[in-house]
């Protein structure tokens, strides 16, 4: 199996070695973020299409900055698509993209499977920036990098994911990734957001409904954003979510003393997370953002640019 697959569609199909390769390759790019001059010519002349069919500021800016710092040009396509026109509008857009001949495409779409759909139809590498409720591979990679840096290793942690797991592609990608490294995963949230099927995603995954139980012994806590639409569904007003699931300092004390708190962002202070925790020493959200840039640069470097696999190698080196 290729150490470096052509696309980055998800974590599920990656091996632990492939994941470690990308994490290790992110390190030089972490250092790069501290350079006074953050502009390389490595991908000069390459164009990266950044096609976001779902609104996002942070991830889009992160990918665009990553491409730009590598010296590539970006094509920004932002379109909010109605979920009713799923298949059709995607085909049309794919054809338009093809005509503009980018060297790679980063795609976020509200339909699970959209990046794979695109990868099957284009010759160029495809990077998944989040598809429906399916996967968000770069988020899981940057979370893993943050865990490894802060806690010294990636293997064998007790990881608690807190919140709306059902609708979270971040949760799924993290479950796939961390379980490949022997994590014991606890999914904790309101019953209707933590259905039984989630336990089948990977080995060593369990569900609990009480936060006290969920945090007991946790080394890493991933706090998920509560999507405001969900709070209007019957059964869980905001006040009750806060009462039962908000991560406060008091609750954080139930976890291991050096537990790491991660959040994919954007945080809603006072809802899923107490501002005191968000601003506290155990919370690594700002490092996550910096690491996100490094991870995306490493991925763009390896996936885009360079000759095709059958190009002749030069004799030197």
């Amino acid at each position, binding site marked *: 199996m290729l150490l470096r697959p052509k696309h980055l569609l998800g974590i599920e199909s990656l091996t632990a070695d492939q994941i470690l390769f990308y994490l290790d390759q992110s390190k*030089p790019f972490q250092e790069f973020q501290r350079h006074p001059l953050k502009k390389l010519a490595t991908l000069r002349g390459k164009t990266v299409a950044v096609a976001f069919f779902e609104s996002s500021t942070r991830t889009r800016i992160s990918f665009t900055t990553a491409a730009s710092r590598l010296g590539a040009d970006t094509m920004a396509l932002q379109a909010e698509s109605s979920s009713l026109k799923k298949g059709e509008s995607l085909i049309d857009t794919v054809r338009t993209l093809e005509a503009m001949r980018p060297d790679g495409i980063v795609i976020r779409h509200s339909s699970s499977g959209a990046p794979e759909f695109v990868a099957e139809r284009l010759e160029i590498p495809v990077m998944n920036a989040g598809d429906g409720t399916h996967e968000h591979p770069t988020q899981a990679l940057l979370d893993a990098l943050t865990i490894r840096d802060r806690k010294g290793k990636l293997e064998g942690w007790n990881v608690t994911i807190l919140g709306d797991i059902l609708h979270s592609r971040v949760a799924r990608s993290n479950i796939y990734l961390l379980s490949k490294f022997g994590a014991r995963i606890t999914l904790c949230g309101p019953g209707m957001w933590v259905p039984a099927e989630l336990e089948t995603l990977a080995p060593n995954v369990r569900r609990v409904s009480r936060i006290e139980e969920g945090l007991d012994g946790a080394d890493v806590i991933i706090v998920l954003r509560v999507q405001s639409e969900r709070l209007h569904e019957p059964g869980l007003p905001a006040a009750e979510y806060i009462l039962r699931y908000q991560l406060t300092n008091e609750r954080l004390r139930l976890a291991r003393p050096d537990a790491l708190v991660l959040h994919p962002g954007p945080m809603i202070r006072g809802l899923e997370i107490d501002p005191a925790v968000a601003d506290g020493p155990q919370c690594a959200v700002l490092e996550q953002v910096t690491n996100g840039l490094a991870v995306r640069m490493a991925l763009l470097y390896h996936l885009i640019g360079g000759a095709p696999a059958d*190009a002749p190698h*030069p004799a030197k080196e």
Partner: protein
Amino acid sequence: MRVVEKRQLLSAKEIDRTLQRLAHEIVEKSGGTKDLALIGVRRRGVPLSERLAKTILAFSQVQVPVGILDITLYRDDLSTVGPQPVVHSTNIDFSVDGQDLVLVDDVLYTGRTMRAAMNGLFDLGRPRRIRLCVLIDRGHRELPIEATFVGRTVETSDTEIVEVRLQEIDEEERVMLVDRVS
């Protein structure tokens, strides 16, 4: 690609003597060690720069700062190499602004590596001066690049390769001239 060893260019002892001489030359031609810093170009420039710094410390009692530079991201041949080469860390934990830098590498050949190294250094700041120290200059320059400090100049043909083998990386210590055989 098959290679055949043609002859030894430097023995372990000769490498050591050459480095000793280069260390003295660097300090002499810099008028001392003020603002002096060595930058080892990955891979083999790194142990060479460390050895030079150690020698300089021994005779001048000054610990000249040593940095490590990886030039992968600055190469000019990335679109022809095939899958992207693995990137390694650059580790220069001091400011290069105003510094008198000496880039250290094992072999100077086309000069493209040094061009890339200079690009890398300029991303970090504005050195006062950059000079180059190499163990072997094998000619065949493709860019206007010169080394101030040269261990040995060797005439080579296009098919030949100069292999510097250092204990820290290759677990043996000598410089070989090898030839490509088709």
